[in-house]
């Protein structure tokens, strides 16, 4: 044992165990008939084994000392007594070792297999050690003659076995804290059990009804309705009654010939069998109870989750038929389980959301185990529409589930708040626009006459105009962002030439480029076809990219726009010779209000919304946008790549494959 036993505690245990061992030994020897050293029931063996199992190997000297004292004060020489004591000690140590090795040690009562292992290994096998060594020592010392050897050995062995099976469990079960029950609730059963046990034992062993099996109902009662603890006590009581009665000459093991050898053998067999049987049945029941308890706990938890949660869980098949639904469906959607199960999932969806969900379901089916989340409107039983966030997960491959799990909860309130916030933003933005318009126009009127003002005033006026322009752009971007968030980007699709749109935007930013001494170049491949897209929004995107490129490029730089194509897409790239974008910031570039660390100082009038809007437009147009900015190499600057499908349909097919 690795654990260091504190000295005092060890000494106390040592003394106590030695004392208990000696007393138990003396009691046992009172029933020694064949030979003073070989008793019909030998309690010390069970105590010794329990000691080693509970407190570990370091307490073996207590067993040795106890056994020596008992024997040396009985018969025989110190040598013989020492040999017997060594045998007893070995038996306990080997028994404990076998229990730890093959029957889960201290947890041995946790499963029937362990109890069987304990009965066979510690009960039947290890108990052969002590009689073998003991009988040999007694024979060498001349205390028995060779003719009686087998009888002595047999009695010794069965006595030890009975002790291990009837006493060790009592000690182990009552010192360990497992499977204790609430006596307040079951006191009547406990009392009834002991009464029944005593009455049946009394009848059997006082020859009223001399049939040993009559003790079984009480023991089985305990094994099934009570715990292993009461059962082990019951076994011990019956054992004591049987031993006492047999020695008093009554009970079923005494026959007319009064053959004590035969009676003892029968008694010992009886004890071993009822002990092993009761313990095994009892452990089967407690394991069953344990498993059942865990199962009930887990069922209870599951029930709480599905009933009390604010979300509902349904199981659907590939065609969205509802196979199962949690009781909380009532809380979320108003339908009972009976109403919901068997119906068609699509029938609860807002008509315009159906295609969206069908598409999602197609992906869910082809991607087992991958979660997909979607925001949809579902009809509450009351007829109102709810915003529901649903997560789908395909568990078709799971042989027990065999379906798609849909987990959903009502986020109407959240959604309403979001919409209210966006609406507020929209109204606020519009309210801002009117005064901004007035500022703009008034400054423009004043600027028209700027030649008549002193230079300082004209400069301040220009500044005013610039700030006004910035505010207008910010408000416009805010309005656009709130539309994007609400999903309100209606596209006006027309067949347009990407090259023409690029040319138009180049013209639009020419003045700005000249002001900053940036030259603009266009490289367009020949044969770029027209594409079906929203010309206005594509124009906005390109303008945004061009403006950024010009703003973040130092004077004398070059901004190049190239237009090219491959089999599916039109590619538009805007390259500058500017300050570049650090790698860690590139992934954040398309998020709301993000401004690069260098960008903010280089050009303070950005809104941080342009690229977010551009990305949202492109998502809607089934296009893509990405950034390439190898900051390390000087002069390359940043390249923004846009790809737009030449045909939205073709692209979609490709995406599915």
């Amino acid at each position, binding site marked *: 044992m690795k654990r260091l036993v504190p000295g005092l505690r060890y000494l106390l245990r040592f003394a106590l165990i030695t004392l208990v061992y000696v007393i138990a030994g003396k009691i046992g020897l009172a029933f020694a008939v064949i030979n003073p050293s070989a008793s019909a029931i030998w309690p010390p063996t069970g105590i010794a084994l329990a000691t080693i199992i509970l407190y570990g190997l370091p307490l073996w000297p207590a067993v040795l000392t106890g056994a020596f004292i008992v024997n040396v004060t009985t018969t025989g020489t110190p040598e013989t007594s020492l040999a017997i004591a060594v045998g007893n000690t070995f038996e306990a140590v080997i028994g404990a070792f076998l229990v730890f090795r093959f029957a889960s040690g201290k947890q041995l009562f946790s499963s029937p297999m362990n109890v069987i292992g304990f009965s066979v290994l510690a009960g039947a096998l290890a108990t052969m050690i002590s009689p073998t060594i003991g009988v040999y020592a007694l024979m060498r010392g001349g205390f028995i003659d060779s003719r009686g050897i087998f009888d002595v050995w047999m009695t010794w062995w069965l006595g030890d076995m009975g002790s291990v099976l009837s006493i060790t469990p009592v000690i182990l079960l009552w010192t360990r804290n497992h499977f204790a029950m609430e006596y307040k609730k079951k006191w009547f059963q406990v009392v009834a059990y002991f009464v029944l046990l005593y009455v049946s034992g009394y009848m059997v062993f006082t020859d009223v009804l001399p049939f040993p099996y009559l003790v079984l109902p009480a023991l089985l009662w305990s094994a099934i309705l009570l715990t292993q603890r009461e059962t082990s006590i019951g076994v011990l009581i019956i054992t004591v009654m049987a031993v006492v009665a047999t020695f008093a000459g009554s009970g079923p093991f005494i026959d007319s010939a009064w053959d004590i050898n035969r009676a003892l053998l029968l008694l010992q067999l009886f004890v071993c069998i009822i002990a092993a049987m009761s313990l095994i049945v009892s452990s089967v029941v407690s394991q069953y109870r344990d498993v059942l308890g865990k199962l009930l706990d887990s069922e209870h938890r599951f029930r709480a989750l599905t009933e009390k949660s604010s979300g509902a869980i349904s199981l659907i098949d590939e065609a969205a038929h509802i196979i199962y639904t949690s009781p909380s469906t009532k809380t979320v959607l108003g339908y009972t389980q009976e109403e919901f199960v068997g119906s068609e999932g699509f029938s609860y969806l807002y008509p315009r959301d159906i295609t969206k969900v069908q598409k999602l379901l197609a992906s869910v089916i082809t991607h087992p185990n991958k979660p997909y989340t979607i925001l949809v409107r579902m009809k509450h039983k009351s007829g109102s529409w709810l915003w529901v966030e649903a997560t789908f997960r395909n568990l078709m491959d799971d042989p027990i589930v065999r379906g798609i799990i849909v987990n959903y909860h009502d986020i109407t309130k959240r959604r309403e708040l979001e919409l209210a916030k966006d609406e507020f933003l929209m109204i606020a933005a519009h309210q801002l*626009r009117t005064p901004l318009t007035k500022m703009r126009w008034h400054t423009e009127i004043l600027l028209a006459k700027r030649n008549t003002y002193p230079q300082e005033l004209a400069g301040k006026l220009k500044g005013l105009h610039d700030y006004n322009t910035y505010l207008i752009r910010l408000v416009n971007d805010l309005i656009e962002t709130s539309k994007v968030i609400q999903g309100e980007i209606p596209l006006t699709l027309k067949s347009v030439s990407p090259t023409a749109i690029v040319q138009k935007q180049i013209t639009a930013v020419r003045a700005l480029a000249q002001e900053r001494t940036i030259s603009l170049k266009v490289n367009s491949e020949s044969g770029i076809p027209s594409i079906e897209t929203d010309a206005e929004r594509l124009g906005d995107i390109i303008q945004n990219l061009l403006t950024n490129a010009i703003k973040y490029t130092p004077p004398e730089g070059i901004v190049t726009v190239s237009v090219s194509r491959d089999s599916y897409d039109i590619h538009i790239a805007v390259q500058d010779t500017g300050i570049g974008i650090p790698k860690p910031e590139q992934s954040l570039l398309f998020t709301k209000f993000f401004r690069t660390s260098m960008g903010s100082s280089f050009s303070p009038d950005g809104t941080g919304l342009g690229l977010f809007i551009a990305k949202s437009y492109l998502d809607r147009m089934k296009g893509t946008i990405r950034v390439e900015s190898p900051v390390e190499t000087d002069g390359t600057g940043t390249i923004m790549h846009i790809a737009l499908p030449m045909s939205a349909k073709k692209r979609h097919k490709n995406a599915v494959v």
Partner: protein
Amino acid sequence: MKKIVIIEDDTDILEVYQEILSQLKYHVFPATSGKLGLQLVAAEKPDLVILDIIIPDSRTRLNGMDVLRRIRKSKPTSHIPVLIISNLSTQKEEAFRLGATEYIEKVNISLDDFTKRVKKLTSP
């Protein structure tokens, strides 16, 4: 002299319109409510109507869209070009559906652009 009816509830903006358009030799008829605007349109048969979308008129409950609808409905005025100039961006589609000739987001247009468009819309 070409006639323009401007229906706009914001008097500051109305003044700006008046100032610029008068310089360009237009005869401007300002109206600060939808009701008055409709009367002016019917009486003057202008060459152009400039209309703001939100005209809060608590008595008649006429908004810009209603005014547009009525101009188009009435035979003598249905041909008159209507330039919608507003700070609302959400009603563009509906305005065109009701027969608006052009739709401008007020804040996004410079006075230069504004006068160019007016000239274009009033030239035969």
